[in-house]
């Protein structure tokens, strides 16, 4: 109805100050909506990157073989173990699985590893460490080691070790110096410190040692295969589904990060709920504002509505005129608010550069389209009541002869 649109537009432009005020009110609501979206989205991103960003999204660990159960003739259960089997839990077919998993869409990186516990010794000082053997070239695919390097080089090679700042300080080590690493099951290696990193996480900086896969292989006496495969995904929210897929594909026990992360999920959910709550209020404010303004306008224009009805304008036409006004207000307010929201978010650091102490606003999570769409829908819904009131205006009393 082009003509109803013309009349709606004229009504809005006839009272520019009032329309501007109304649009500004809607824009503020939209602004809050967008600000909340960016903040909640950014916070979630921030928390996730701090907690989950540096860990494996899906981990496949070698299943420790259950010891065989033997039953003695009198019914006692005996557990049979052999010393040599303790370290026998390995994933042997890595050469097939790694390329298979890597080929899956949504998988960013795969890191086959040999891990184990060990002791670092330098002089009289000994520290317990958790050793990770990774393939040279894949040092940074799970934990972003290269991003955390403070000294030396991240590249691992035979006879090299990379340690955290705390551990290096504790052992009073500097780059190029040598140390001895002894594994829990007896293997030893003399290693040269080639790099020092600092993640800011004490558990990593003070207790992890990275060596090359081949060094770990001799150290832990794993002649073939690996002890675990870590997988990083493009989107960590797809971990559950991807883990299922990898299980189906390889038959391996792929465990997503979300297993055992219930508290984190609850916290993120609660945060998202708060966001929905505030956004809903912003929308309700918009709806009430538009509805009351249009209701007032309906009342003020009663005589005109009566004239139009007398001249042959149907009820539907009148409804359309007022609903269109609502839609136009929603659209203008929505676009203005979205533009203001975007401009207000520009000064905040991008998601890659979040710093503690600042609001982790994520400009890419402003939900601009959603904000505008919901506002237009809200404004249309808000205008239904006034529009119906307008359509019910009795021409006789409105013209007031």
């Amino acid at each position, binding site marked *: 109805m082009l003509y109803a649109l013309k009349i709606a537009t004229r009504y809005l432009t006839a009272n520019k100050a009032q329309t501007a005020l109304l649009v500004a009110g809607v824009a503020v609501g939209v602004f809050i909506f967008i600000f909340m979206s960016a903040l909640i989205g950014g916070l979630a991103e921030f928390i996730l990157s701090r907690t989950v960003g540096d860990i494996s999204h899906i981990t496949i660990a070698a299943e420790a073989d259950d010891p065989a159960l033997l039953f003695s003739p009198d019914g006692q259960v005996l557990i049979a173990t052999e010393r040599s089997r303790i370290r026998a839990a390995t994933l042997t077919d890595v050469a097939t699985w790694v390329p298979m998993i890597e080929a899956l869409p949504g998988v960013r990186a795969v890191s086959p590893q040999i891990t184990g516990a060990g002791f670092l010794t330098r002089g009289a000082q000994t520290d317990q460490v958790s050793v990770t053997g990774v393939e040279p070239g894949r040092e940074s695919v799970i934990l972003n080691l290269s991003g955390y390097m403070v000294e030396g080089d991240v590249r691992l090679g035979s006879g090299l070790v990379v340690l955290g700042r705390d551990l290096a300080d504790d052992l009073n080590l500097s780059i190029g110096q040598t140390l001895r690493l002894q594994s829990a099951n007896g293997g030893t290696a003399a290693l040269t410190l080639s790099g020092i990193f600092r993640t800011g996480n004490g558990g990593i900086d003070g207790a992890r040692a990275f060596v090359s896969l081949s060094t770990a292989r001799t150290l832990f006496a794993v002649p073939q295969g690996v002890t675990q495969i870590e997988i990083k995904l493009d989107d960590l929210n797809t971990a559950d589904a991807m883990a299922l897929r990898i299980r189906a594909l390889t038959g391996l026990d792929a465990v997503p990060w979300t297993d055992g992360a219930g508290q984190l999920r609850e916290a993120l959910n609660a945060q998202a709920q708060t966001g929905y709550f505030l956004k809903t209020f912003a929308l309700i404010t918009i709806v009430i504002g538009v509805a009351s303004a249009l209701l007032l306008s309906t009342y003020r224009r009663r*005589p005109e509505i009566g004239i139009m009805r007398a001249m042959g304008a149907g009820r539907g036409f009148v409804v359309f005129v007022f609903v269109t006004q609502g839609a136009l207000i929603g659209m203008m307010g929505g676009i203005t608010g979205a533009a203001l929201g975007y401009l207000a978010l520009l000064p905040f650091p991008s998601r890659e550069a979040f710093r503690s102490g600042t609001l982790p606003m994520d400009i890419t999570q402003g939900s601009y389209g959603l904000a505008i769409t919901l506002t237009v829908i809200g404004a249309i819904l808000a205008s239904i009541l006034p529009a119906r009131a307008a359509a019910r205006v009795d021409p006789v009393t409105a013209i007031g002869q």
Partner: protein
Amino acid sequence: MTVLLELRDVFKTYGTGEAATRVLRGLSLQLDGAEMAALLGPSGSGKSTLLTILGTLMKPTSGSYTMLGQDMIAGGDNELTEFRNRHIGFVFQFHNLLPDFTALENVIFPTAVREGRETNAARMRGRDLLSRMGLSDRINFPTANLSGGQKQRVAVARALMNRPELVLADEPTGNLDSASAIQVMDLIAQINREEETTFLISTHDEKIANLCRRQIVVGDGVVTG
């Protein structure tokens, strides 16, 4: 002369019980095509009520009303709205024009609302009507800036826009000075002659009434003369 409309035995009561006002009490009336009639009667006699019923804006409490052979009592809101748009024009005393629209936009409203847009053909007829009303220089004027007499002439032009068979005017000259009143009446008379449009004009002014060929007087809820 062809019969344009016929009211028979029409009653109209406002309110109920103690507060009931019985305004029309068995009123019958016939208007022919191309008639020019004045509607007279003391204040409160029911002139506006009668015009409102004739204009299909309100239904009588009882009685029958046919116009152009159609039953005007049975029609639903959409039907009557459509009928009004095509066959009946209105000129009211107050609140006549849409204040945020120009003279031309007001005049072509009845056509535009039917066609869903303002066509060039409608604009041409609108301009033509406005110049016949002596308003060629006020075509694109915001109606808020027009004088009372000019506003009433725009209203007459708008009432004629869809070439209705009937124009109902409720005290169209009620708040005009006598010179403007005569001017508006002259235009109405001219249109009545040229386009054979039937006019029914309520008025308290004998001079205005005498410009009409027929005088209808209401009193005690019926036509008394």
